[in-house]
């Protein structure tokens, strides 16, 4: 008979030697760098073009994201429908995204179809037409979507908390609005496009099973010319203007049965030595299912379906943001419990057993996250775009393996004082 009360032996986190697989780098004829992680196991690939052209660089609200979105909706040779047809026909996904710093275009496809798809991608990136008609459909549909979202307490809360942290004119705190959609103009978008989607402002990341002539194809389509001329972008200085008040209560829906609770404070960016330590402390607080917040507020009290704390990865400044949707009549009690947990981390040392568990959990999680070429290139992309290398990655792992309970307590004492947090409930 086995003794089911005794846990099987485990291999400890500190014993795992995690390696970040190195990338290959090729430079196209015009100088565009291509970062590559190959894998032959599947018949799929991912190609991402990254441009410095996120909302940080826009002078009017929403221009960066609208430009990024509408590039795909018509070129001088192809209509939006033709572009959609040709990607759908080959079962490919052509996604676009715009964040604070960067705007991206990502193609996912079966390796065998890459040659058929790259001319379409080239057309979208090099020759977008920004038809008036497409802008007006976009404007109308985005406004409708916004109207629906504005009824959701979590959506409204997310907008407000970032505004308190960074200020409503800062790219991190600025939000969409009906007026901003109305104000969008084709000419502004064309200008933004010309200025930011240039050959010397582009990096390419590819992963997966690549066709033998991949680099040749990339050179043919993106590497020959100095397309859109030479951009000389200067990253503007933008200052953070946090709110002076700390506590906010908003009634968005009088019949709401839940409130969206947000408790947040600013935190230094990833280049600060406390950042990697905070990744560990944040996990203990609210970064996994067994966290202090989940154990107390969900598993002990049943106030919510889930509560999490998050460390923003923004470039200029980060923030710690605790978020949950809780029953309307237990929102205030939830906030009290959150503060209680913050104070406990300030006053009491994290027990060795718990710290051990969190180390193992985090290492296991990184091991799982690095599984597959798409995941590895994603890691590299984050490092490269932030001007970092593999040492940063290994240092973070080292912090997870070696940080002490005393260091965590000091960190909590510096950053977990309840009075320093913004507090918001949206019902």
């Amino acid at each position, binding site marked *: 008979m*086995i003794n*089911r*009360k005794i*846990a*099987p032996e*485990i*291999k400890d*986190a500190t014993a*795992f030697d995690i390696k970040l697989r190195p990338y290959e780098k090729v430079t196209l004829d015009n100088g565009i760098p291509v970062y590559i992680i190959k894998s032959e*196991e*599947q018949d*799929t690939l991912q190609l991402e073009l990254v441009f410095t052209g996120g909302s940080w660089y826009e002078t009017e609200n929403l221009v960066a994201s609208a430009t990024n979105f509408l590039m795909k909706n018509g070129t001088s040779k192809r209509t939006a429908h033709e572009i*959609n*047809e040709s*990607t*759908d*026909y*080959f*079962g490919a996904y052509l996604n676009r995204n715009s964040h604070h710093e960067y705007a991206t275009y990502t193609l*996912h*496809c*079966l390796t065998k179809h890459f040659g058929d798809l790259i001319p379409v991608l080239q057309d979208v990136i090099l020759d977008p037409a920004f038809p008036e008609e497409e802008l007006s*459909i976009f404007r*109308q*549909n985005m406004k*409708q*979507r916004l*109207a*629906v979202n*504005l*009824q*959701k307490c979590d959506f409204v809360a997310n907008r407000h908390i970032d505004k308190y942290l960074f200020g409503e004119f800062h790219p991190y705190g600025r939000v969409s609005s009906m007026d901003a959609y109305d104000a969008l103009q084709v000419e502004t978008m064309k200008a933004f496009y010309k200025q930011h989607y240039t050959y010397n402002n582009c990096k390419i990341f590819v992963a997966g099973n690549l066709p033998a002539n991949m680099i040749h194809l990339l050179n043919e389509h993106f590497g020959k010319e100095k397309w859109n001329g030479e951009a000389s972008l200067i990253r503007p200085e933008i200052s953070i203007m946090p709110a002076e008040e700390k506590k906010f209560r908003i009634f968005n*829906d009088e019949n*709401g*049965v*839940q409130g969206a609770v947000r408790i947040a404070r600013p935190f230094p960016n990833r280049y600060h030595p406390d950042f990697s330590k905070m990744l560990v402390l944040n996990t203990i607080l609210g970064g*996994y*299912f*067994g966290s202090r917040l989940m154990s107390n507020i*969900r*598993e002990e*009290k*049943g*106030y*919510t*379906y889930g509560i999490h704390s998050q460390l923003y990865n923004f470039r200029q400044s980060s923030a710690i943001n605790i978020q949950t*949707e*809780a*029953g309307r009549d237990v929102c205030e009690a939830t906030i009290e419990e959150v503060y209680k947990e913050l104070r406990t981390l300030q006053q009491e040392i994290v027990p060795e057993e718990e710290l*051990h*568990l*969190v180390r*193992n*959990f985090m290492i*296991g999680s990184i*091991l*799982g996250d690095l*599984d*597959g070429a*798409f995941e590895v290139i994603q890691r590299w992309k984050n490092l490269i775009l932030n001007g970092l290398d593999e040492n940063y990655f290994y240092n973070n792992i080292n912090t997870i393996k070696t940080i002490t309970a005393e260091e965590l307590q000091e960190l909590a004492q510096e950053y977990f004082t309840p009075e320093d947090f913004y507090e918001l409930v949206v019902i």
Partner: protein
Amino acid sequence: MIHFNKFTLANGLRVIVHEDHTTPMAVVNVMYDVGARDEDPNKTGFAHLFEHLMFGGSINIPEYDEPLQMAGGENNAYTTSDLTNYYIQLPAENIETAFWLESDRMLSLAFSEKSLDVQRKVVCEEFKEHYINKPYGDVWHKMRDLAYAVHPYKWMTIGKELSHIEDAKLQDVKDFFFKYYRPANAILVVGGHVTTAQVKALAEKWFGDIPSGERIQRNILAEPPQTAAHKLEVKSNVPLDALYKCYHMPARTGKGYYATDLISDILGGGASSRLNQVLVKEKKLFSNIDCYHFGTLDAGLLTIEGKLVKGVKMKDAEKAVQEEIDKVQQTVIPERELQKVKNRVESMLAFEDMGLLNRANNLAFYELIGDASLMNNEFTHYDAVTTTEMHEEAQHLFDEKNSNTIYYYAG
């Protein structure tokens, strides 16, 4: 091609091993053949509530999550109308921890009153978060009730009403466990950096002595063919009018399933699909419109749902949707368009198979519906569909008598 080995323990537990030595990880997936369709109409939401209780400690292990996290693992679970699935991902070296945890909760739960008490509240908050406190959040409650007369798909997995969850008793929990959560009703899939011999030994060691239980014999009432169109008008505090149309469609393993799935993709799959191109881009009647279904094991619903552009009249929007449906019924789909949706399926399956967790999930699912090897034939079924077959399928699928419509008005 997904390779796997399969064996059955003496107690009836089906075990599938999918070796993949390119990863340092392992996945342990346990699927139980029970879902919301097995519930008592007066105790709905129970299968899902029960899923929460599976994390509340088992007979020999007071805490489920802690030892798993200590072993560097992560886990989650989901319940659908048809099945309940639990999965773990962890470093392959620590795989025995997953066997220990999963086998103990299959042996017996701790049945703690405290856990039931808390999880009732947690599930009520989940209910509120997703179905009450969201615009249009109640529409599926209404649609299922409108479309089904007798079949238990009549209620949602989360439950018909909060009171059903609030009233759940510990005795219900025990009865449910010993009826459904037995080796005979479960499928264990282990994938990743493991060997079949190793999994065989571990499965015998940890699961071998659990009493078999009885394989579930279902007597679910089949939904009779619908003989008249159902319509419902709703007025609610939402910003936009919305239109929902559902049509009864074949079961997952039924004749016509693949053709119907491809029809849904013709109408609503991708930006180039007909509904999106004609109704959003050309006619500008909807700000978004989708066509989808859930692939349920019993006969399900093909759904078209869209939000109307402000100022558009419901009857004009519905007429335009009907015109697209008429086209699918009256005109044979062009070969190139059929090839497009087949290519989309081929690609989707390839991307789905990239993740180890997905592969393990899918192997369990295909074993549940008959045989894990069906997973490798899936594309062949789609590829065999002809335009004629789709045309025939569209005839009864889109019969007006087979339709259920909700007019959801902003008010």
